[in-house]
């Protein structure tokens, strides 16, 4: 079972408001990923980190989304100005990425509703 912790489980925001969600990766996992799963259950990769450094991010993330994984603190994903189209399930995953273990383990997700 996954030990990735995500908070809050549900988040309701108005358009234009900030929305922030947090993730604690599984202990010992240096790589963290954020995904968006839309109402059609399609996944979109947003950004990933290795320790505190960004490895890869998509264009959408560079504009209204900000994310960080500070040392000794939860990782976070923040939408600066929420739009209706941002309503989705936001999933955090972590990975050991090494020693024969390359799979990602998902947290329970934060379901964002933008009114």
């Amino acid at each position, binding site marked *: 079972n*996954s030990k990735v912790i995500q908070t809050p489980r549900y988040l309701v925001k108005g358009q234009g408001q900030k929305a922030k969600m947090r993730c604690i990766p599984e202990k010992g996992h240096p*790589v963290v*990923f954020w*995904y968006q799963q839309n109402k059609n*259950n*399609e*996944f979109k*990769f*947003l950004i*990933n980190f*290795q320790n505190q450094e960004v*490895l*890869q991010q998509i264009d959408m993330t560079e504009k209204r989304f900000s994310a960080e994984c500070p040392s000794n603190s939860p990782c976070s994903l923040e939408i600066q100005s929420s739009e209706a189209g941002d309503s989705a*399930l936001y*999933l955090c*995953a972590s*990975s050991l*990425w090494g020693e024969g273990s*390359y*799979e*990602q*383990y*998902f*947290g*329970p*997700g934060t379901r964002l509703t933008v009114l």
Partner: protein
Amino acid sequence: GDSVTQTEGLVTLTEGLPVMLNCTYQTIYSNPFLFWYVQHLNESPRLLLKSFTDNKRTEHQGFHATLHKSSSSFHLQKSSAQLSDSALYYCALNNYAQGLTFGLGTRVSVFP
């Protein structure tokens, strides 16, 4: 970029019958990592199977799949479906520490 194509839409079957979900992929990398995730209603994806070894069968919880690099395939099979297997199934691919590329998902509904 990478892409994953899997059995589309809804697969309905009777409990006890076999199930097979197709998955093919495209990538420029010669050593991709392939995964099957299962997502039950109101839950997050849970890892079901993983492979990065060509022609080696991997098994878990009655499901099995074999990565065939020659045909870029990683089909999921189970010999006898159970009611509890009703869920969304995703085939996914990645390379190194990149984000996963998911297929569009297959919804499996098992009836008594």
